[in-house]
């Protein structure tokens, strides 16, 4: 790492919490004008390392150097003052303020400094200018609470670029973005590189990193197991460094054996969200639903589940028509929904694995009024073993578990509830590589055992690897039904995108898709 001085250097960082070593002798160097990718499974230590950089935690030992000068941060504002800005995975915008107000929060342009009167016009103009320059189609005067998750992420990114002077850390910045927006983001990142910023980019999406990463550090179990120039090692090797072992067959194969139609949807519509959706799923089948953000996929599965009422059309479950679908009746009829946002609509965060797991089927554990605690514990242990939930502690509070394990707990909920038809909305979003493959294994087992699975996903390789058929939605309509074995990412995108530009941009994102993931 020698020719130019690194903008940021972290040397020999050690950190333990309550006796557990979370980071062991970690080194990280990021140079100005470069994107340094930081990858690793959940729990590898990436967040902790970045929180140390942001001044939220203090390292037990080790140094941080900015432009060769040693710095130490007593609090996050010190890190900010040193020119380090972070974009967290959990968004930190104020929903009741406008986009412009959020972007300039804390550094509003003032028209009369002594009284702190904000120059609203300048603020809006500058914000509008920035958004336009980056190509984000967002109105600076909109209230953040009215924005989609994708737009909020873009606002968050914009805000960080105002703050960042030397180092910008981005943690999974594309998790809520469509292909189009990712392209905009990458353009922005290139511009920031030209500005001389050192960018640390944390992501699970190795294929995206191909477009922007210059260097790579891989963390595993708190150690930096690989550091080098991007492209030096193959994707398989990166994954091997991350997981510490070969991950063969991330998409386990499954023989297709179909049974009866378990779920049939006819001309289903919900005002303003989707219309005229018709499809059926048989036992043993996995149906993928692809589409860009906003196509209505989540709304579709929520309506089938009964969380919201349909305005038109019919739902048939196990051959019988469902009138007025409701979550409670769906559950007893064997329909389960793994929601898109597990923190908001899936988990009771302050409760244990056991309680979260058994919530949808307490009646099977009830003897009269009271719950058989012993049987419950046994049931929970069973699911923990079946799904390799880690840590295998039935009393563990789910808030403290990794995203992948949290998702497994929710999947276990539906398994325990005896669901036969599964609606999975982005089942591997925010889930690390090894947990992903376990979830795929479970889904395949379910299908083999006769369940019918509907999987909404923005991860095209995932859909191609897991589904038998892929339905494509576009702007609320079902526009294509493709055979997963015969179709390609490009074809799916062509149906999913509205116009030529969106289609080209989406292909651009996935061009180098191959190798280890398939």
């Amino acid at each position: 790492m020698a020719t130019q001085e690194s903008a940021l250097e972290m040397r020999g960082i050690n950190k333990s919490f309550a006796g557990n070593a979370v980071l062991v002798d970690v080194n990280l160097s990021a140079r100005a004008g470069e994107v340094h990718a930081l990858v690793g499974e959940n729990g590898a230590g990436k967040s902790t390392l970045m929180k140390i950089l942001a001044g939220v935690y203090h390292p037990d030992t080790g140094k941080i150097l900015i432009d060769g000068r040693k710095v130490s941060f007593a609090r996050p504002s010190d890190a900010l003052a040193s020119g380090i800005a972070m974009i967290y995975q959990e968004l930190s915008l104020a929903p009741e303020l406008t986009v412009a107000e959020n972007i300039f929060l804390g550094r509003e342009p003032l028209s009369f400094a002594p009284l702190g009167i904000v120059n609203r016009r300048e603020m809006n103009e500058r914000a509008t200018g920035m958004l336009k320059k980056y190509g984000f189609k967002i109105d600076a005067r909109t209230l953040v609470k009215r924005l989609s998750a994708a737009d909020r992420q873009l606002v968050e990114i914009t805000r960080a670029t105002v703050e960042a002077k030397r180092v910008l850390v981005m943690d999974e910045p594309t998790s809520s973005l469509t292909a189009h927006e990712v392209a905009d983001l990458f353009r922005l990142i290139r511009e920031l590189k030209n500005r001389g910023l050192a960018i640390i980019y944390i992501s699970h999406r190795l294929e995206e990193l191909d477009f922007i990463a210059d260097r790579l550090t891989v963390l595993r179990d708190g150690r930096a197991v690989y550091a080098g120039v991007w492209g030096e090692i193959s994707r398989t090797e990166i994954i091997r460094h991350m997981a510490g072992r070969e991950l063969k067959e991330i998409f386990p194969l499954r023989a297709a054996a179909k049974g009866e139609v378990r779920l049939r949807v006819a001309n289903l519509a919900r005002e303003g969200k989707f219309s005229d959706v018709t499809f059926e799923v048989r036992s043993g089948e996995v149906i993928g639903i692809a589409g860009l953000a906003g196509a209505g996929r989540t709304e579709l599965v929520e309506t089938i589940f009964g969380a919201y009422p349909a305005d038109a059309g019919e739902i048939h479950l196990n051959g019988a028509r469902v009138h007025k679908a409701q979550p409670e009746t769906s559950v007893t009829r064997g329909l389960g929904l793994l929601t898109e946002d597990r923190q908001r609509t899936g988990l009771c965060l302050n409760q244990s694995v056991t309680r979260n797991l058994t919530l949808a089927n307490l009646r099977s554990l009830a003897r009269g009024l009271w719950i058989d605690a012993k049987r419950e514990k046994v049931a929970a242990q069973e699911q923990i073993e079946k799904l390799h939930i880690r840590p295998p502690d039935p009393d563990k509070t789910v808030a403290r578990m990794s995203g992948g394990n949290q998702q497994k707990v929710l999947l276990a909920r539906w398994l325990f509830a005896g669901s036969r038809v599964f609606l999975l909305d982005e089942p591997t979003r925010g889930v690390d590589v090894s947990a992903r493959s376990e979830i795929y294994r479970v889904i395949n087992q379910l299908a083999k055992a006769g369940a019918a699975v509907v999987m909404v996903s923005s991860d095209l390789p995932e859909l191609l690897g897991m589904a038998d058929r892929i339905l494509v939605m576009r702007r609320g309509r079902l526009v294509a039904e493709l055979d997963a074995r015969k179709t390609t990412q490009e074809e799916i995108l062509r149906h999913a995108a509205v116009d030529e530009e969106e289609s080209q941009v989406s292909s651009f994102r996935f061009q180098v898709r191959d190798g280890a993931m398939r």
Partner: protein
Amino acid sequence: MSDWIKRLIPFASLIALCVIIAVLQPKFLSTGNLGSVARQTAVITIMAMGMTMVMVSGGIDLSVGSVMALAGITGAFALAGGAPTIVGVAASMAAGAACGVVNGAAITTLRIPPFIVTLGAMGIYRGIALLVTDGKAVVGLPTTYGYLAEGNILRLIPVPLLIVVTVALAIHFLLSRTRLGRYCYAIGSNVEAARYAGVRVARYQIIFYLILGALAGLAGAIESARLVTGQPTAGEGYELRVIAAVVIGGGSLSGGQGTVIGTIIGALIMGVLANGANLLGISSFTQQIVIGAVIVLAVTFDEFQRRRLETARS
């Protein structure tokens, strides 16, 4: 481990408080005085246990004091009309339950925050009670009715204490071992997640308010027995003491947390403080300041614990 410490601290504070007061004024420990403490805290404690359920589920009910009064005079009317004690108490509880159902139904169908709905209900129920009695006490209750509040079982245990213990066992059982209790915690922890898991959220929320209402009715019956009249002005200001009991005992205003034992300790801490202050001749104005401070301290301590646990995890 930390969960145990959390529960132990309020209990230890209570013991410490009792010790301090006993040292300063040994009369505190006399059976007469302890009995008095039991009787005085009974009404608040009973309602606080119902409130525990409602708050754990993420709700709140500001109308409990008014429900207590309305239910109390309903029972009083029945008793004045010649009904036996058990019918009078049942009438109180039924009236309270009815008020609770109205609260619950309004909250679930109107989808307005419980704070607001019950704030309005507080005025409405109080108004009805005053209207129906023309602002005057309901008299003509049999004097034997006073036994409910002033009597002793086996010469030693005050009747209200027995009632409190029974209610405590029942609510503790409901909250910790039944589906009802499980749904209560789930709804309070994440109402959307509960809904998506197939829990009939609205129905259970109404049940929680119903139970609180019934217990407020029971409290009203006991209060009427204290003066052997039905007072339409009973329970004024009680709602805040009831909520304070839950909160001091570890319950969270945002739901998902709280236990019966904690609430009882919370109610006892307030009751012992008040009793001790009286024994020591401390003015009731000072008492109010102290109680206010205790509430803030208890919640601060609780939050502090919670945050320490959260940072320790990553």
